[in-house]
């Protein structure tokens, strides 16, 4: 669907006309990211991150396919084959550093993309499906990144795989058989490495598929916007081409600049030194930590240090870690405020900036540190807030909060006035939310 005033694709070239009546691919592009797709004119830069995520996905697929041409998924030589890529393959170091830092860049982008959704209420009707598919993408991304990190078969690869698959061992009764089944053995070895490699190559293409659905679902109602007031008339929108192609384009180049600065000048900044030591099942590293983008969840996992009634602490940690993401699936039904954008929600805004953001940052910081005091107590408090925020505070805030007045329309918020508001604004005001 699109708005009634969307431009219609009218091919002028005979070949394009011929094509349009047989396989209307150009029309598809025109309607999806061309002049045929009207977008709210007031989108701010937080709305660029979906496009940046697409760029990251593309980068990862391309660099990953090149790496796969030289990588050997065999526990005996995996580590050396990565070093072979770094030393002997032409531009191999560029491919590997682009891919490793590309994963980090992807997560930076996706976290901003998700928190944009939290703040501006993008998950609310009619975009629940966009949101749900987004959470599915995020889960797939985490699985892909985790398995990718195992491939170089360094110390952190090995011990990370051991710890994370060990989480399944916390499930009562069937835990250990499940863990052994996942690994194809009692500890990570060749069998595990090969299946992780196979899945690491597969999942990105599953992600591509879900991303197509994500954007399809988005294009039904169209993008929301910083006011959260839905599009009402043509003056609220501009065509995607040229307006947002230009904006996304310059943002993408700026992003690539920062990304390349890291790839060329600090490519190991975000990595852990221990992963340059070949995997050694006999020597446990002093500190086993995942990559930085898992730290908040890792901190939640480790926050549960005491059995809770009859539930073992470890099981509690595993439950909480998975729940901390799964609760995002329920968000559209937990936050019932009719006002979408956090901008007009004085109470929500405070909880977002002074509660959610600090607690996630504290969790991230603690997740990268030793599981010792004071980090444990800090992450317990932060995790306390995290769960309270989504499961208790949001449902209550949305029913007691008194939102600020909303603009009549996007046009009014941009131009300061909207002729239609003067005509019949009063009646429409309630519907504006």
């Amino acid at each position, binding site marked *: 669907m699109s708005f009634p005033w969307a431009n219609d694709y009218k091919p002028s070239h005979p070949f394009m006309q011929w094509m349009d009546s047989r396989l209307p691919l150009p029309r598809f592009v025109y309607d999806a990211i061309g002049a045929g797709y009207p977008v709210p004119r007031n989108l701010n830069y937080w709305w660029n991150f979906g496009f940046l995520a697409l760029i990251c996905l593309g980068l990862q697929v391309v660099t990953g396919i090149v790496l796969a041409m030289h990588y050997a998924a065999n526990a005996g030589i995996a580590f050396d084959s990565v070093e072979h890529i770094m030393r002997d393959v032409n531009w191999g170091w560029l491919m590997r550093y682009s891919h490793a830092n590309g994963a980090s860049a992807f997560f930076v982008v996706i976290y901003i993309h998700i928190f944009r959704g939290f703040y501006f209420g993008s998950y609310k009707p009619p975009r629940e499906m966009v949101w749900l598919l987004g959470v599915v993408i995020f889960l797939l991304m985490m699985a892909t990144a985790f398995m990718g990190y195992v491939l170089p078969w360094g110390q952190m690869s090995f011990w990370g795989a051991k710890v994370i698959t060990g989480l399944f061992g916390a499930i009562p009764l069937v835990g250990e058989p499940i863990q052994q089944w996942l690994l194809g053995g009692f500890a990570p070895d060749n069998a595990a490495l090969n299946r992780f490699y196979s899945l690491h190559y597969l999942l990105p293409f599953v992600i591509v598929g879900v991303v197509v659905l994500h954007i399809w679902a988005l294009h039904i109602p169209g993008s929301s916007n910083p006011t959260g007031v839905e599009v009402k008339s043509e003056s609220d929108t501009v065509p995607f081409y040229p307006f947002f192609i230009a904006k996304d384009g*310059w943002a993408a180049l700026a992003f*690539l600049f920062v990304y390349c*600065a890291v790839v060329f000048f600090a490519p190991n900044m975000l990595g852990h030194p221990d992963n340059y030591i070949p995997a050694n099942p006999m020597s446990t590293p002093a500190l086993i930590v995942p990559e930085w983008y898992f730290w908040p969840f890792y901190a939640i996992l480790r926050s549960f240090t005491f059995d809770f009634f009859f539930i073992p602490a470890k099981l509690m940690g595993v439950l909480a870690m998975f729940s901390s993401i799964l609760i995002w699936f329920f968000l559209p039904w937990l936050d019932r405020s009719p006002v979408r954008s956090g901008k007009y929600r004085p109470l929500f805004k405070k909880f977002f900036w002074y509660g959610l953001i600090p607690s996630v940052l504290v969790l991230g910081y603690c997740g990268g540190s030793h599981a010792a005091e004071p980090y444990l107590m800090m992450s317990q408090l932060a995790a306390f807030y995290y769960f309270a925020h989504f499961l*208790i505070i949001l449902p209550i805030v949305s029913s007691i909060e008194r939102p600020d007045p909303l603009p009549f329309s996007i046009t009014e918020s941009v131009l300061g006035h909207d002729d239609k508001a003067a005509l019949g604004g009063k009646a429409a005001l309630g519907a504006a939310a």
Partner: protein
Amino acid sequence: MIRIFSILAGLFFTAALLWSFGNGAYSAITDPAAVTAEEMFHKHPKQLALASDGAFGNFDHRQLQRGFQVYQEVCSACHALSQVSYRDLKQLGYNDDEVKAIAAKAQVPAYNAKTGEVKSHKGLATDHFPPVVYGGQGTPPDLSLVTKARHGGGAYVYSLLTGYQNQPAELLKHFPDAKVPDGLHYNPYFVNLNIAMPPPLTGDGQVTYGDGTKASVDQMAKDVSAFLVWTAEPSLAKQHQTGWPVLGFLLFATVLAYMAYRNIWADKKH
């Protein structure tokens, strides 16, 4: 309904967290973690300035050759360098004949799949540095990647090599049981303060540099650290040389794209 479930789930998780927090806080107060000798005496690496540092860094080939000499004459008795091949040494400025001569001094074991035998042959330029058999205490790690496998990199190796000292009396005062175990050596730059490696660089002039540089312990430590930065990241200089044009191009393209964006939106308020 869903919100009632949600609040109940919220209470469940928050209560379990408070329980852990309470117990943790209680034991933190009643049984505070004791300071360990490592926490008190471990030192962060010293400063080391190398030509390869920074975004313009390039390798100093003469220093790398000196460092290679230290590795060959001292460290290679115990440490392997398995990721490096002899032909890689050409990057240090050796010519083909010199590389062949260096390789020929080594005996490289090779496995013959037909006979199942392992036979050694005289090293070729294409061979990697051979494995090292070590019979002493501890396990000397392969040094190829060591500067990327430790926090501090080259500076860490330099500090370690020049950091041997007698165990401070103060340490024993605080921790009477922490005497350096037999066969280990006190070194405050090593994680647990006691390292199995005997001080490898013991006196000035341990090697004789061909370029006339005075081989003080400090100089040898610097040179071999620089060399190990190279073995860990031989493409470092190329990364810098490629990075600048790439960033220059991206900056130019970003500015152009930004101007295009401003132009396109010029009379669209947003």
